[in-house]
């Protein structure tokens, strides 16, 4: 049973990664990253039931990681809003003024 959960999480991680690296819309990129973090949480919770030495620690771990994810996305959106206000873009492929 554990394998199924792990595979679910692996698929979510890879889909999230694909989204983060292929979508042009900055908000969706952030959302895809949330998906990757969520996949890690699925992993952790699955391990806390089926892993070696199951315990509630995993729950605590994923609780923390959810909080962190929320904080990260809040800052990310704030930066995006600032960037949009100054440059008027939200397309990540157009963010290339720094290339050399």
């Amino acid at each position, binding site marked *: 049973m554990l394998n199924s959960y792990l595979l679910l999480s692996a698929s979510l991680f890879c889909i999230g990664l694909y989204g983060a690296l292929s979508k042009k819309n900055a908000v969706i990129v952030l959302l895809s990253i949330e998906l990757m*973090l969520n996949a890690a949480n699925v992993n952790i919770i699955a391990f806390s039931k089926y892993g070696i030495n199951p*315990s509630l620690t995993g729950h605590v771990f994923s609780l923390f*990681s959810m909080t962190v994810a929320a904080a*990260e996305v809040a800052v990310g959106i704030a930066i995006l809003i600032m*960037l949009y206000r*100054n440059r008027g873009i939200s397309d990540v492929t157009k*963010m290339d*003024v720094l290339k*050399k």
Partner: protein
Amino acid sequence: MDTRLFAADLLDMLPELTLFIAIIIISLLDLFWPKNASKKGIGVLTLIALIVSAGFLIYQRIHLDGVISLLNDSYLVYHYGILFKLIVLLGVSLIVMMSFGAIRDKDIPHIGEYYVLLMPAALGAMIMASSADIITLFIGLELLSISSYILVALRKHHTKSNEAAFKYIVLGSIASAFILYGMSFLYGMGGSTNLFQIGATLQSLESSFHPMIYVSFFLLLVGFGFKLAAAPFHTWAPEVYSAAPTPVVSFLAVISKAAMLIFMFMFLPVYFVPLDPVQNLTIYSDVVLTLHVVAAISMIVGNIVALMQKNVKRLLAFSSIANAGYFLVVLSTDRPGELVYYLVAYLLMTIGIFAVVTALENSAEHQDISIFSGLYFTAPVTAVMTVILLLSLAGIPLTMGFLGKFFILLGVIQVKTYWLAAIMIVSSVISFYYYFRIIRLMFMRSHSEHTTIKVPVTTMIVIAICVVATIFFAFFPQYMLSFIEWT
């Protein structure tokens, strides 16, 4: 084996507690700070908090006997941890001092928050040095990362800076996701969040788990390499370095790197998993080999691409990528003493050179390498000190930079990794060239950019501290080495 924290234990956490309380108090003070008063007061308070915290650390070190372990071995107070924390505090203090003269209102509208934010970042790094628990490590890392995302974004009216901040947070979050995913595997196989227990359990696992152990390492490596700015995970660094405020850049270059080194220093022992008892082969040996390869790529890419740069901060970004390579080398030879020495050397020369850059770019209003031209004729003292810092970065003898690299090389040759030693020597030879380019620029009279340069007093003090220490600890490394080796 107690899993609770008692009031008495708080004494062992005084340095961190100091910062914790300072963050709360100073950020509240910042809210009620008089509108027209200078925000430098916040900076001074921050500096005081950092120094008090460092004072507690030194006190703690003097009275330290062995290892203090709290909360079921998840929080450790030990010699090298204290050294790392002192380095972090030293670095942040220098950066705060540098900022007094360097940060201008038109650049950063929220100077008070700027100073406040440096503290949680330092706190995150300090916690990582003490933590043997992956949850605490992760939270410490994120505290550091999120603070630095905000720090990079503080230059609000600067579109390049906005863009760099967004790139930094997106890439940084992806790196965090990789780290978290890798940690989840470690947690699953180790059955605990405590690194010692994970290490013990991993060793007893049967060989079918080995692939997963490898994968957990490589997942961590992505995040680790990213935040250390080691190639091929370095690509963000030139952009963020060139766009962020210079004191923040020196923060990223020094403190973030130091924190990541602590992070990996904690994780590496987990991988002492025997593969083949006959050949004395462990997963650790593969891990080390991987680190060596990453180190080699970083040194080559960093030093060579730096040759092509015209923007000072991009040049220094690549130089810091190359330095990430040197750090990886010493990390993989498992010599904490040398790591600390080179870390201090790197801290001094990097913060010193960024202090110079911040004064020059504020005066010239651009970052082209030509800001250095004719410096010797407009500001001779600054120029001479810059030369010393650059010589140290290049690893010319009689500077800390040379001794640091010399120690690293001794270690590499001792473990008979000659190819890595060769790459290290050759690539640092290449680095001479771009550092000398800057030096030569400074002694060109005709092309002088500035008529006069005003280096703010605090910036000058920072530069002077860095230069004097760089020279002093090269001539008398004994003082530092005996402190590092103190038992």
